[in-house]
């Protein structure tokens, strides 16, 4: 039972782009509690389902495995029925053909996504095996958010034990200042603090912070604001629009925003806008679509989007990020990358201009970056998949209105049913 917990706490969050090839890791480097032989047997027994696409989580009892396999089988069955219905309709009405074909492609793709999620579930919290797996601690909290975010968007919210995840997040509190580190005993940082609160919010567990812990994290975030309104990532002085976004979202989740914090932050963000309409890391630095997301996100949380002068130039620059392949890049003359399906698309969504790019072409691009064999999504076609690109690919698909995915909130990058409970700023008393 404790192996999931172990794999989170002792093990590393895997699939941060590391090789996915091994199955028999648990018995070797696991916490010494697993039985290699038995696991391989389980594996052999169930792997045939879905033509080998669906993997098995060694850390979950066999019964649970079977149940979730049954669940998937039922769902796939439903998809089959849908596909047949689609086929019949196409035969009946030729005019519907094109629409139906795309529907069919979506169903097929969803099926692949579900298969992938089953695989991902095995890999995400696998026991570490190789050296590279042990070396990913500095991204663990972020990876937890990306991984769970993906699972929540594909409606698999129960893959992991809520209590164990929450306990892990709490174990990352940095006692010296109240923020969250990327892993236990790692320093608190704005990046990991936001990921931690996002994970807690997804599980509706923010209320489980003790009064003291809550005060601690609020104090940590507020103490990172500098006199000019910007935020640093930790006490060592790095300033970046990312951290303003982190701070405002953290305080928004905790419902602790105040005009004195927000107004200064908004003024500083506005100074980061460039000649091309988009935003950089600090005032004066080059526009970058990901910084565009953090700035528009911060302004949206602060309910200050209307302070943005000349939105059109920004909207055009963002839509110019779509290249011939349908994918989006982050800066002019750069290659497209699946993660910009999120940074650019969410920015356009916040501006109400999602239609300024070709959504169908982008969807095709994202889907073409799936690894249909291993599952998951990579930055570009035929490259190695990882949990980061998988999450932002899925989140992009969700914004595009992809069927059967939960709707994602472009501001918070969390499911909308999660963010709908967050009190909107300015607060009415």
């Amino acid at each position: 039972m404790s192996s999931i917990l172990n794999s989170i706490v002792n093990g590393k969050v895997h699939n941060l782009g590391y090789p996915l090839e091994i199955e028999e890791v648990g018995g070797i480097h696991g916490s010494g509690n697993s039985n290699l032989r038995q696991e391989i047997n389980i594996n052999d027994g169930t792997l045939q389902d879905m033509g080998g696409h669906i993997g098995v989580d060694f850390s979950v009892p066999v019964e649970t495995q079977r149940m979730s396999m049954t669940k998937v089988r039922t769902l796939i069955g439903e998809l089959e029925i849908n596909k047949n219905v689609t086929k019949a309709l196409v035969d009946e009405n030729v005019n519907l053909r094109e629409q139906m074909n795309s529907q069919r492609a979506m169903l097929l793709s969803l099926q692949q996504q579900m298969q992938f999620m089953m695989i991902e579930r095995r890999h995400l919290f696998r026991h570490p095996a190789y050296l590279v797996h042990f070396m990913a601690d500095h991204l663990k909290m972020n990876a937890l958010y990306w991984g769970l975010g993906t699972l929540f968007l594909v409606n698999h919210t129960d893959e992991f034990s809520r209590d164990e995840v929450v306990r892990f997040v709490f174990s990352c509190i940095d006692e010296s200042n109240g923020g969250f580190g990327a892993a236990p005993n790692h320093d608190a940082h704005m990046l990991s603090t936001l990921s931690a609160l996002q994970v807690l919010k997804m599980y509706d567990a923010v209320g489980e912070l003790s009064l003291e812990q809550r005060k601690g994290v609020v104090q940590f975030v507020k103490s990172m604001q500098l006199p000019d309104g910007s935020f640093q990532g930790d006490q060592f002085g790095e300033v970046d629009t990312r951290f303003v976004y982190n701070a405002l979202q953290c305080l928004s989740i905790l419902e602790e925003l105040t005009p004195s914090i927000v107004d200064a932050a908004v003024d500083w963000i506005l100074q980061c806008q460039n000649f091309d309409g988009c935003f950089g890391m600090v005032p004066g630095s080059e526009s970058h679509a990901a910084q565009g997301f953090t700035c528009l996100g911060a302004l949206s949380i602060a309910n200050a989007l209307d302070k943005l002068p000349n939105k059109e130039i920004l909207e055009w620059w963002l839509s110019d990020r779509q290249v011939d392949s349908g994918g989006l890049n982050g800066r002019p003359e750069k290659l497209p990358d699946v993660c910009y399906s999120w940074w650019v698309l969410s920015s356009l969504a916040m501006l109400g201009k999602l239609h300024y790019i070709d959504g169908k072409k982008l969807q095709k691009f994202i889907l073409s970056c799936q690894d249909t064999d291993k599952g998951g999504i990579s930055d570009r076609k035929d490259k190695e998949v990882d949990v980061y690109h998988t999450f932002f690919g899925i989140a992009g698909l969700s914004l595009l209105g992809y069927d059967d995915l939960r709707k994602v909130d472009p501001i918070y990058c969390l499911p909308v049913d999660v963010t709908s409970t967050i009190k909107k700023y300015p607060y009415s008393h």
Partner: protein
Amino acid sequence: MSFVKGYSQNSSFESMHGRDKSFKLTKEEALKRMRLEKPRVDNYKSLCERVLLGRKQRIYNQEYYDLVTDLLEWNQELYTVWNYRKELITNFLFKSIKEACVQARHDILVKELDFVLKKLKQSPKSYWIWNHRIWCLKLDKLSNWPMELQLIETFLKVDSRNYHVWSYRRLIVGFMKSDQEFTKSDELIDFEEFKFTTKMINRDISNYSAWHNRSQLIVKLFLKSPGIELQDDDKSISEYLGVFRKKDKIGFLRKELNLVKTAIYTDPEDSSVWFYLKWLISDYFIKELTNTEEVLKLVEKLNVDVEELNEVELDDNGIENNWCLITEVYLMKRLFKLQKNPQDLEKFHEILNKLMVLDPMRIERYKEIKLNE
């Protein structure tokens, strides 16, 4: 080439991008790999645990300084360990010298910068390492700014668009300006930076990072430019100096549009210059210009140049160039603002209709754009 040796384009977070697919090991191969790696895994784990414990217990001594160096050699992405290193420098290395001895402090930091440089060459896109370098420079009263600028040029030779390197350059420029010991005036530093962007653009017109920086510097130089004490042998550069001194925006545009024209003719498909050109005809330059006739002449001349280029493109490739057409859209907007000529309106819609066919991905934005906003 010693710099390039050992220089990697990949760094940890970056290494999640563009990696080739891994191939699947057989069970035997995987077990073998794990067996082979086990001693290293054990070493790494125990080193990591020791260092993090040392940090928690606030141990500041040579032994832990060396352990931290070792651990960062294994993994330079451990931000907590970089933080520990900073504390070791201030709480141990600095404590071992006389408080007031600036030179001794400088010597320690120079050694540290060498270490950082080695790490940066392995991971030129790692936030944590660049941060550590900046942190060091902030502590050093004897920082060598010209040397930092040289270092930046070398990094840009390897990757001319590295976002971190350009940010670092602007930061160094900021340090130079606030350094009382550094004798150059702010506006002179800005002008030298402007010259640097000219050099980078002449080397490669597709360097959007350089165009961006240029836009920032132009705004600063129009607010304050170097006085007559500065002369430049390069005729073109001294002409720029002249227009900045006179705050002559139209004179600047005349000069700058020549540079841009060369750039768009060099590679009409490259989007970098077109974004920059869009800015040149924006309100920042045009709005305050009162001599409407002069502006009109300039915009019309630019329009003719862009149309000509588009014709060349049509002849060469059998298809019109989207960037030419998009630019004509802005130019029509600008012309209409200047003279309210109904012909411009007609042309505006004509071009948009073409773009809707040639650039269907963005068809909706062409439907929404208004001439009169």
